[in-house]
């Protein structure tokens, strides 16, 4: 990234931060959080294409929701340290706008009016992104999207859907799903497979405990 582009990026992100704060968002661990309910918050990431060969700067706003209990339980079951605030569901803003396809906001050096363009980008987040967040607030809606691999990928579903089932009291469904994927990775020794084996073992233990009424109970909700 050139020094000029770096300066432009810093300027654009600074303007965006001010405007997003005006929408009620706050930045935490590099992403923007939109407070919604006790267990759920809106999630926004600004994915930057700063190495375009035309020297312009592209920003792909990614909107999502974060179900705090799902994400907390995921951290607990994978035994991984939580280093980032991950979304439970997410998608590039262009796909939930009338455009219906991938869109990148492009920023150029002056005399291009990057301040106005930034304002338009934030306005689109407000008009299309926030309603998307609100439409996926309920755990049942999240489960349906995970089941359809909508606003997510299979890599994420194999972790989050069993956890979501567990949280909704469907211990059997959670165990069945984790067991099925465990079967797929049982002969693999790569990192992803190892991580899944740890996760699945912990989930199955928890599911069994919950089903027998001897569980440690569901994780209490904590903001973020």
């Amino acid at each position, binding site marked *: 990234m050139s020094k000029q582009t770096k300066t432009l990026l810093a300027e654009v992100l600074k303007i965006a931060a001010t405007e997003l704060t005006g929408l009620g968002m706050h930045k935490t*661990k*590099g*992403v923007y959080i939109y407070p919604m309910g006790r267990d759920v918050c809106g*999630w926004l*990431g*600004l*994915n*930057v*294409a*700063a*190495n*375009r*060969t*035309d020297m*312009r700067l*592209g920003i*792909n706003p*990614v909107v*999502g929701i974060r179900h705090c209990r799902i994400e907390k339980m995921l951290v607990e079951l994978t035994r*991984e340290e939580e*280093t*980032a605030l991950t*979304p439970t569901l*997410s*998608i*590039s803003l*262009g*796909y939930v*706008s*009338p*455009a219906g*396809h*991938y*869109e*990148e*906001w*492009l*920023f*150029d050096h002056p005399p*291009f*009016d990057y301040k*106005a*363009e930034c304002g*338009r980008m934030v*306005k*689109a987040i407000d*008009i299309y992104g926030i309603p998307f967040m609100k439409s996926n607030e309920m755990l049942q809606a999240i489960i349906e999207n995970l089941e359809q*691999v909508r606003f*997510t*990928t*299979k*890599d*994420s*579903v194999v972790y989050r859907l069993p956890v979501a089932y567990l949280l909704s009291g469907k211990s059997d469904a959670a165990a069945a799903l984790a067991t099925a994927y465990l079967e797929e990775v049982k002969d*693999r020794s*790569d*990192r*992803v*497979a190892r*991580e899944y084996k740890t996760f699945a073992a912990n989930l199955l233990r928890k599911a069994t405990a919950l089903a027998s009424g001897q569980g440690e109970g569901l994780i209490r909700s904590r903001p973020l």
Partner: protein
Amino acid sequence: MFRGLTSLLGLGESTASSVARGGLGPVLKGVEGVEKAVAQVESEGGQVLGREITVETSAGRARVDLVYKDASGNLVLGEAKNGPTAALNPNQQRVFQALSNEGGRLVGGNARNAGLPATIGPGDVRIFKY
């Protein structure tokens, strides 16, 4: 760039001019290649998840042009090469081979801001050659 949003957002001429400058001007081959790759992914029923994502493997780090979800819901890494002489550089060859064999990690702010998982299993990087 969001040409269709102009009227919906009530932005009028201001956006039209920014589109002309920001989206319709001549671009270089690298950008063209990525834009073609994005169009191809979408024509196949996929969705772009993120751009310029850094991957880390036992063979080192490299940046891929895009990460997308294919029509079956799988996460795929893609690299666009536009022009008859465009090819992977030696570092990309090493890193992509390691990804294919053992998987790797998606690291850095762009991976985080695209909402991507931290680790990915073994798989090929798809090369979009134009």
